[in-house]
């Protein structure tokens, strides 16, 4: 690794000042993306700003009315290990639980997953489906950005020089809400998604009509892809295989994948369809209370 300076500020203001003064600084949260990137020479920041000592970034609060406040430096294991959050947002938590193995979970953060802006990031489609919003601090004051607008290109975000992602807000799940995330990888665990699909929806009281729905895909576009039209199509429709199938088809239409080492464009298109259908089915089951948040590997 190249030589760099390291600072660990204790306040958002100090962090913003440091980031502003050194235009090329990198924020260190869990480091599970940044450190390998620095080892490979893909990033060579002169200054690394460790944000784990800033209280706001370590906040993890769930309230059934207010929703979830997720500090940008909260490691995944704290979220996955929180029963109330897992019950409220099973689809989001299962996406977060797929970010690496247990030892990665001990370090990696959802904030980092967002800021690394990989098109294949597991948490982002689920965050988009759950209407999450980024809360950003910066030299010009705070601002908010919906997660679907946060990433702009592979490795790039809306963050301006000096800006810092402080926390993420996820609205409280309304009654009859269900969410799910699935990804396809050649292995059974531990890999980067060939395609990821996240969905969240709200059913009517009888569990028969979809009132609202949001669908997002990973690894099928230069940035995590919000398939707004698929969710819009579902709104107001009764739950049926045909309707879910049509939404899955719309997701497939929206996907604009490339061929690379992990998969071909044709396979990714196809998987967009399959996974969208599967997560919609699972989200419906959860909204109906038919499936009790069974998580990956927990039989």
């Amino acid at each position: 690794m190249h030589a760099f300076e390291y600072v660990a500020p204790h306040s958002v203001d100090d962090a913003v000042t440091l980031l502003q003064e050194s235009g090329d600084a990198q924020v260190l949260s869990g480091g599970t993306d940044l450190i390998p990137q620095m080892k490979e020479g893909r990033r060579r920041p002169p200054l690394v700003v460790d944000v784990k000592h800033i209280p706001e970034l370590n906040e993890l609060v769930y309230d059934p009315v207010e929703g979830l406040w997720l500090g940008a430096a909260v490691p995944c294991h704290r979220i996955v290990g929180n029963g109330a959050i897992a019950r409220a947002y099973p689809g989001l938590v299962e996406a977060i639980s797929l970010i690496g193995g247990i030892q990665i979970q001990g370090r990696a953060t959802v904030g980092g997953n967002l800021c690394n802006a990989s098109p294949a990031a597991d948490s982002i489609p689920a965050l988009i489906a759950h209407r999450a919003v980024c809360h950003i601090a910066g030299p010009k004051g705070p601002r908010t950005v919906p997660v679907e607008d946060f990433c702009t290109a592979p490795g790039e975000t809306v963050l301006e020089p000096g800006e810092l992602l402080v926390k993420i807000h996820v609205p409280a799940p309304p009654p009859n809400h269900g969410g799910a995330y699935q990804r396809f990888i050649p292995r059974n665990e531990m890999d980067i998604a060939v395609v990821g699909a996240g969905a969240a929806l709200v059913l009517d009281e009888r569990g028969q009509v979809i009132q609202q729905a949001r669908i997002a895909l990973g690894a099928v576009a230069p940035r995590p892809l919000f398939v707004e039209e698929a969710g819009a199509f579902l709104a107001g429709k009764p739950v049926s295989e045909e309707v879910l199938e049509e939404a899955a088809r719309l997701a497939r239409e929206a996907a604009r994948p490339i061929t690379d080492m992990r998969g071909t464009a044709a396979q990714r298109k196809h998987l967009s369809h399959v996974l969208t259908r599967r997560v919609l089915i699972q989200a419906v089951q959860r909204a109906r209370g038919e499936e009790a948040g069974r998580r990956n590997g927990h039989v």
Partner: protein
Amino acid sequence: MSSKVMVSTHLNGQEVTFLCEPRQTLLEVLREELGLTGSKEGCGNGNCGACNVLLDGVLVNSCLVLAVETDGRTVTTIEGLTPPDRLLPLQQKFLEHAALQCGVCTPGFIVSAQALLEQNPQPTEGEVRRWLAGNLCRCTGYDKIVRAVLDTAQSLAGDPAQDSAKEVGR
């Protein structure tokens, strides 16, 4: 070259102070500066788990932690997990089940599995496999490792008051 930083860490039960550059990983400092070579570098980018240690009790890849980040924190390595005069029940079960061959991945598996058992003393096989999914082994095919962990859990449950570890000449 950036200047070196003084770091004080509670390492394996002792206060340790060392000088390091910010660019040095915890793994590098453990192996090269502190002589703790039980943690192995199998990949250097968090894919194999051979360098796993506990940081404030949480399982991490030491190759993905900067040594400067450990200032004021607690680090436990395979050397610190191993009792001074005997083996952990888990280590003993690895022996009994032949859950190791070349042995490079073994310290990482021991650290990981020990962390699992401390948090979840009676894991299911699915939980063991999920927990160990970030540790790669190229020799054993994993089955004997999973059996060793499950058998450790069972034996500790059967006789919680007493360590099942035998005295082994070290």
